[in-house]
């Protein structure tokens, strides 16, 4: 697990960076207006940026997808703003999930993560308020409600990496 440093930049936004194994500091700045900036520090002067690239919203999303980043946490940030302390997210069930073909009850989601499954999206249809007897299928999207850390745990649980 990478240790991320979080530094507020007053008037600009937030900086997240870490010392990569390749020896350079790498980071992302989230601007208040939604732009993202990626930067890499110089080797001879580790306090300074060698290069930084500003990405628009859609570009940042494309790069995140390429890197296989978690779209979960990113979406969480936006939904978090709606209600303090309560988050909701759509978690796509990965094909490799151990719960494909298993009962919803077998996830023990509420006991393990404190979040509730409020719906399952299947194709164009939604199954609202599913009971523990519902069987997960490939391509399901699970809608969960709970605290933000709980939802991160839920996503990990569904991936099979709790």
């Amino acid at each position, binding site marked *: 697990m990478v240790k991320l440093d979080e530094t507020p930049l007053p008037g600009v936004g937030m900086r997240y960076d870490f010392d990569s194994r390749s020896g350079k500091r790498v980071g992302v700045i989230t601007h208040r207006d939604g732009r993202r900036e990626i930067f890499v520090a110089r080797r001879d002067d580790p306090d300074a940026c060698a290069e*930084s690239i500003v990405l628009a919203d859609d570009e940042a999303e494309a790069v995140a997808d390429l890197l296989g980043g978690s779209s979960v946490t990113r979406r969480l940030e936006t939904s978090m703003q709606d209600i303090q302390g309560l988050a909701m997210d759509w978690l796509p069930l990965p094909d490799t999930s151990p719960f494909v073909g298993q009962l919803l009850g077998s996830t023990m989601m509420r006991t393990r993560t404190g979040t509730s499954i409020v719906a399952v999206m299947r194709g164009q249809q939604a199954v609202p308020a599913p009971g523990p007897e519902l069987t997960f299928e490939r391509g399901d999207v699970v809608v969960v409600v709970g605290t933000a850390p709980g939802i991160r745990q839920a996503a990990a649980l569904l991936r099979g990496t709790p």
Partner: protein
Amino acid sequence: MPLGQLFLELGVVILALALVGRAAGRLGITPIPLYLLAGVGLGAFMHLGRAPEEFIHVGAEIGAVLLLFTLGLEFTSQELRESLSKQRNIGALDLALNFPPGLIAGWLLGLPPMACVLLGGVTYLTSSGIASKVLSDLGRLGNRETPVILGVCVLEDVAMAVYLPVVAALLLGGTLVAIGVNLIVALGVFALTFFLALRYGHLLSRALNVPSDEALLLGVLGLVLVVAGAADLLKVSAAIGAFLVGIALSGEVADRARRQIEPLRDLFAAVFFVFFGLQLNLAQVPDVLLAATLLAVVTAATKFAVGWIGAARAGVQTRGRVRAGATLIARGEFSILIAGLGLGLAPQLGPLAAVYVLLTALIGPVVTRFDAPIAAWLTRPARPATSN
């Protein structure tokens, strides 16, 4: 005057500013001192008619109002509280090192006491506009020393919240007792505004926060001008009234208002700098040149020290410390603004501040560009010691 001629003259002025702004971008320096120079040039070579001159005057006042309003908007943020707790010491050092030089210089120049207080403000305030622009344009936001620079700028904004009511009270003048009463009243009004903004700011913000961007812009601008106008009628500076409105707005409405007002502010602030330049009496410049140069050199050194120490405390290496110090050197919009408040007290404050801002805005980028050799030079005495 026919409308056509008014448009023509205004258009020429604004086009000149656009050219100056592009040149500044090319040179990698901030346009503010160049706007001042453009104003000086316009005053010397082009004779504006009465109507454009009046328009520029009013525009300049609006620019001052909007500059302080957007400064006030920055206020209610969470970031401010965090900076306050983390970088309080460096903020105090900044104030202790950079306010007295102006104050003392004013005294040495024989200015009236209130003008000295204003000159202290002129030398104290780093241009947060210039600093943040330099940082983002040169891709230095990710640098380790950057939070220190931004933190110092934020803390200066906090100091402004105490300084401005003091200035407002001092400018009202009168006997010593009257000044004291005014001071208490002004500080009381500011404290009350803070309290109301923290307690009930969300109500005002909610009332102004309409879905339509247009309605929001008009609502906010209208409120700012009404309060600024009322403040002016009460003989408090209009810009200080606008600062209060900025403080009172918070949350989403502050974010949206900032985005909506910014283009307007940029336009009118440019007009403000031109007007300041226009007003300058060139004949006075030689008289203040020596004082301004000395002041610029001394306060460049003191600001540099603040950045250096702040960055060092954040664990930044020598080159980063040099960059932090150099970025803080440039004074700008707020120095001019504060000098503008005191033109009635001491006319020489105008040219002094203009030359001073011009010099610091030039020194800053030059020092930043040569960060590597300067860092090597500054650590030179340490080197033989370590190699032995």
